[in-house]
């Protein structure tokens, strides 16, 4: 029915398209596993794109310092998120909601409401460029390489390190983790920082793919949570898998693409997304109860 998936180039385009969301979801998963929410990631993506366009002033060489600078801003945002949560005892849902609103405002303030510069091609390289004429797969988008690389790093961090196990423990039972000697605060800080850093990376890739616009990241925070939930992550912490979350992001985008190809309108997409969301969680809960708790 759909030639887009019938040939390798189609697959590559699809992976390229989903790259930003997949990386973002895998990073957001760190906060979810640690027992919190990060609603600020979408607005951080917007800030990354708008801020970069403001700073770049069309200079192709600026990319090399802009991306590290943006990562630095991201780290600060993640740090503030966590400090507000743990020091001011504000639930992360509210803390990151406030951060989301504020960051959107900052992005607007910075640009005066409309971005004032282009993203140079060196910046857009990551989200836009395809390596042509690759055997077997036809093209190899740089975004796909980024997805593979960051996905691997995030997988390793979550599932192959002491840190990853501590993260699970903190989300599972913070009190028990603290009494077992887990440095709860630094584990949480790093989760929020990782989430923010991946949001910046996702922003770079999305900005590369789509160019500058003022609300480029809006809605991504909920999509990221949806992807994690589809991937079986437990909200409020303690369980989650990076590969499954990336698969969740791929599934989400595939479903949307499919609905698009079937000619089903946006409203149907919403309904389907809603049903998937409830269904996935209800099923997971049922499964867990079936095996006893």
């Amino acid at each position, binding site marked *: 029915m759909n030639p887009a998936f019938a040939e390798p180039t189609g697959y590559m385009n699809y992976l390229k398209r989903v790259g930003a969301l997949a990386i973002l979801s895998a990073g957001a998963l760190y906060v979810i596993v640690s027992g919190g929410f990060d609603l600020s990631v979408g607005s951080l993506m917007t800030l990354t794109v708008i801020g970069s366009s403001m700073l770049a002033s069309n200079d192709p060489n600026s990319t090399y310092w802009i991306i590290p600078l943006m990562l630095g801003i991201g780290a600060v945002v993640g740090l503030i998120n966590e400090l507000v949560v743990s020091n001011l005892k504000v639930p992360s849902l509210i803390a990151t909601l406030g951060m989301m609103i504020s960051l959107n405002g900052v992005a607007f303030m910075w640009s005066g409401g409309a971005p004032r510069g282009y993203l140079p091609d060196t910046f857009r390289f990551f989200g836009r460029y395809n390596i042509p004429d690759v055997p077997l797969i036809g093209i190899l988008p740089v975004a796909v390489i980024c997805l593979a690389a960051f996905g691997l790093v995030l997988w390793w*961090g979550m599932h192959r390190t002491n*840190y990853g*196990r501590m993260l*699970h*423990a903190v989300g599972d039972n913070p009190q*028990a983790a603290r009494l*077992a000697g*887990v440095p709860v605060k630094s584990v949480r800080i790093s989760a929020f920082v990782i989430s923010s850093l991946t949001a910046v990376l996702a922003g770079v890739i999305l900005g590369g793919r789509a160019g500058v616009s003022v609300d480029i990241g809006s809605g991504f925070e909920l999509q990221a949570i949806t992807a994690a939930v589809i991937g079986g992550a437990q909200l409020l912490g*303690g369980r989650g898998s990076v590969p499954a979350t990336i698969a969740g992001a791929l599934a989400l985008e595939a479903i949307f693409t499919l609905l698009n190809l079937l000619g089903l309108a946006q409203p149907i997409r919403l309904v389907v997304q809603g049903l998937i969301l409830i269904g996935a969680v209800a099923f997971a809960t049922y499964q867990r109860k079936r*095996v006893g708790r």
Partner: protein
Amino acid sequence: MSGTPVIEMRNITKSFPGVKALRGVSFACGRGEVHALCGENGAGKSTLIKILSGVYKPNEGEVLIDGNVQHFTHPQHALLAGISVIYQEFSLLPERTVAQNLFLGREPRKNGLIDNRAMVEETRRVLGLFGVRHKIEPDTLVADLDVASQQMVEIAKAISLNAKVIVMDEPTAALNESECEVLFSLVDQLRASGTAIIYITHRMREVTRLADRVTVIKDGEATASFDHVPAPEVIVRAMVGRDIAEFYPEPAKPEDIGRTVLKVEKGSNYALREIDLELRAGEIVGFAGLQGAGRTALAMAIFGAVPFTGGAITFDGRSRTFSNPRDAIRAGIGMLSGDRKASGLVLMQSVRDNGMLTSRSFANAVGSAAANQFVDQAGMTALLDEMRVKAPSYDQEMRFLSGGNQQKAIVARWLALKPKLLIFIEPTRGIDVDAKASIYHLMRDLARAGTAVMMVSSDLPEILGASDRILVMREGTIVGEFDRSASEADLMLAATGEVEGAAA
């Protein structure tokens, strides 16, 4: 007693994954009867009560009220049938007033609206039964009450239901002597008015004082039933099922006890005052006292979880301050918290991950697998094997294991670090008897290997059986020191403050 019992349970069987909690237990209680239900921690008493109150459904057997078979599927059904339970864990809502808690879910109504005045008056009346000394205002928030008062509110709640059957699950755990007396006279009044009372305790004193009949539960079975109150030794033997001597390992010999590991001088914080103590290598020190006496607070303070704000700590010969658990762990202290589910286990993680949690916390964060000296997967597997943790696989999630196996896995967590001082809080709560014995032996083995062991327990036989030395706490400070030859009565008197304990 004559005629149909008010409440009868026949052949109750109940299993949980990995545990058969109850096997064919039968039990009955008539009007105006106080029936003591005795048994060790983990024997199955609480499970039985939860079946009676409609929280659990039995796999087999039936519950009869006034001779009619009942099928409770919700606690409300049991309440409507006239069964009221005072649970061991408080089921009060801290943010609501005493009166609101007393009438939780059954507020008196006038014209369809809650009759606040009637509620307050009835509350005042019921609380009046405790006498003027224990005055609790109906509109106080429960959060503002101390532990003993909260226990009184729990009791008042059950009484105010005018139930046919009242179940009291260790109601005196937080009460001092005079408060206990108030409770006992209440029980007498209730008995006189024809209420059936199921009284759960392992304090022989209370059995002797109150009971008309006694049933002993051991390992999920009703092992003995008496229509009179036998001598305490008889009950204890039925509860434990073997000689105490076998059950508890040999105490330390004087030569086993070594240098001082921990010394606290004038330790204090919001819950503690004037704490002076020494813990020595090779010695198990039991800490007895009522709930809220400061035993757990002391453990938390030594462990750095809720640090001392005054006084001095010398650990391992050096002056130290532990401002968080990491400091204490790094110095060589471990702690098994009393409420495993709330503060010990990470239930969704594997048995192995639970065991390695502390090791990993002190290892390189990105270090992984066997390469790291702190995170010795093979070593943990061996340790878990050695402790005979029963699990289909060590990759099984922790929540599927029984209480005893969960506790062993946490012990393994600390053993991996070879601590100099290991603190056990209520080490055998919710654990079956076999596992209990192995925990005691484990503690002793640790002590023999030169570890100082601190054990906080509310279970006096356990304190007397497993400790080398016993410290009794009351109102945030240490009020007495005993050796293991002391009697339960000695400890109780010191704990409740009726007599200052003599230094041993």
